[in-house]
């Protein structure tokens, strides 16, 4: 496969698929759908207690981020004194390959693609683009009002609607502002995925170089019906749940996220003016 090359010899050349997106944007669902393909491996969502699905997130790039900083020291000390940048990237890539190889052996030894999703990755794109220029990056974007409502209601969220909206704005902007680094980047909307999961994910699977046959389509349909990572919510999954917010709550979200919502086409002009 022609395309960008990894910074070192790699058994995972062209094999990594990274799902990017703000928490509560459908990242786990998208990863689950990609795993419908027999040639795709990755850690499945797990079910530790009381029927709660908790997504598996390795946060591997967060783990090595201090080394990345070490290698970028301005005082001449650290790894950069011993390794040129491409070899630092190669060493970090080799580390990731070893971890992903262990994961592939555990979750799908014959798979040709390996899916990883950690919302922390939104903050690591300069690092990831350097170590994994050959990877496939899929950014799922969901209406920030729905994300904020959902994020504010879960125990691991930032605690209130405004802070949740700020997290959505920060993450979406971070990914979009660094997408120029990623030669294999695609953006999908959660709402489009919800409307046609089989078609949307089928397109993504073909984009990453895999065939989509009737068996894959059937498996996709089965997985699309499965709900993941709801954290005890009894409100059905879907788009537009921000309408359940009260006027003050909705205004709090728009106050923070109105510009980006408008930029992404989630607001009609009248709503945008109302937010201001």
């Amino acid at each position: 496969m022609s395309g960008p090359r990894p910074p070192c010899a790699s058994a995972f050349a062209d094999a990594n698929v990274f799902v990017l997106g703000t928490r509560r944007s459908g990242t786990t669902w998208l990863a689950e759908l990609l795993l419908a393909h027999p040639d795709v491996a990755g850690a499945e969502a797990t079910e530790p207690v009381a029927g709660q699905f908790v997504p598996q997130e390795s946060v591997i790039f967060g783990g090595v981020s201090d080394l990345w900083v070490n290698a970028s020291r301005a005082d001449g000390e650290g790894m950069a004194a011993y390794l040129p940048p491409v070899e630092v990237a190669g060493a970090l890539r080799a580390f990731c390959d070893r971890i992903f190889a262990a994961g592939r052996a555990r979750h799908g030894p014959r798979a040709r693609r390996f899916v990883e999703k950690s919302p922390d990755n939104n903050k690591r794109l300069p690092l990831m683009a350097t170590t994994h220029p050959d990877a496939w990056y899929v950014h799922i974007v969901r209406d920030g009002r729905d994300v904020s409502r959902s994020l504010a209601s879960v125990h691991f969220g930032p605690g209130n609607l405004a802070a949740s909206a700020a997290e959505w704005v920060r993450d979406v902007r971070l990914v979009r502002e660094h997408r120029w680094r990623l030669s294999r980047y695609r953006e999908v909307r959660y709402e489009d995925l919800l409307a046609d999961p089989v078609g949307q994910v089928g397109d993504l699977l073909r984009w990453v170089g895999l065939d989509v046959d009737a068996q894959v389509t059937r498996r996709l349909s089965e997985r699309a019906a499965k709900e993941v990572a709801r954290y005890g919510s009894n409100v059905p999954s879907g788009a537009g749940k921000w309408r359940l917010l009260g006027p003050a709550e909705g205004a709090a979200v728009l106050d923070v996220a109105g510009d980006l919502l408008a930029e992404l086409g989630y607001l009609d002009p009248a709503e945008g003016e109302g937010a201001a």
Partner: protein
Amino acid sequence: MKPEPLALDIEAARGASALFDRAIFILATPETGAERLLRALGSLPGVAAAPVPTHLFSQGIGRLLDHWRLDPGPAALSGLADAQDFLLAVRLLADAPLAALAEAQGAEWAVEYSPGHPAHAEEIAGLYPDARLVHVVRDGREVAARLSSPVYKRAPRYAARLWIDDQRAVSDLEHDHLFVVRIEDLLAEPEGLLEELVKALGIEVSSVAAAAEALGRLGDLPDVRPGRAGAIVDTVAYDLLARFDYPEGGIGASSRAAAWAEMLAASTAGVAGRLATETGPRAVGRARSWIAERRGGDG
């Protein structure tokens, strides 16, 4: 609760690491004089000395290991790899800069010193069961005094605490190849001690004379008055000083009074953490040993 130390299977490292049995980590508090030993070892044939600190564990590997230890369970790296797979991957990553150094110099051994590494001694020992760890010690009263000098600007209690914490972290290690060197002894008798150390490390050289001569040319470490920071070490860490055979004494009354004032203030303010919490029991122990000495050792 302190997490279980991570320990790489030495056999896994043997088959995979380019630095297996060939890495030397010098563990020392800043201002100990460890750079002198680093240079001396680096002047030996077949040994490459890291010219600047790698900060590998204090800025990088430490966080990576924390990531594993502090986030156990499926929603972390353990969802992908088991502990030994992970540790071997980390070891090979940590090897990269020093392996590159050794290769560039055509050296068999690589030796490095990073001032923040004593705090990560347990991690280094766990990831490098085959490496040589050299604990370089200097009288803590002098080190603390240097660290509280205008060059470092540390508060005396923090300067004292750094030396104390570093020595305890390294002294508590269980490692098959841990060596302790007092810098004062090394500078007083460079050739003899260097020869002994090099032999213990397993470095095969015909002579250490040139390295010893280079070490000798550097002369003694600068004289330091212990001051308040040194007095805190003397009061709180007398057991550590004794463990490394540093004699008591040399603390003036005014420095000791200032040390007590600072420790009490730190204790009241709750900012000195372990140092403050240990002050009471250690002071009692100190008083008991003083009384016992006056009674002729029967107390």
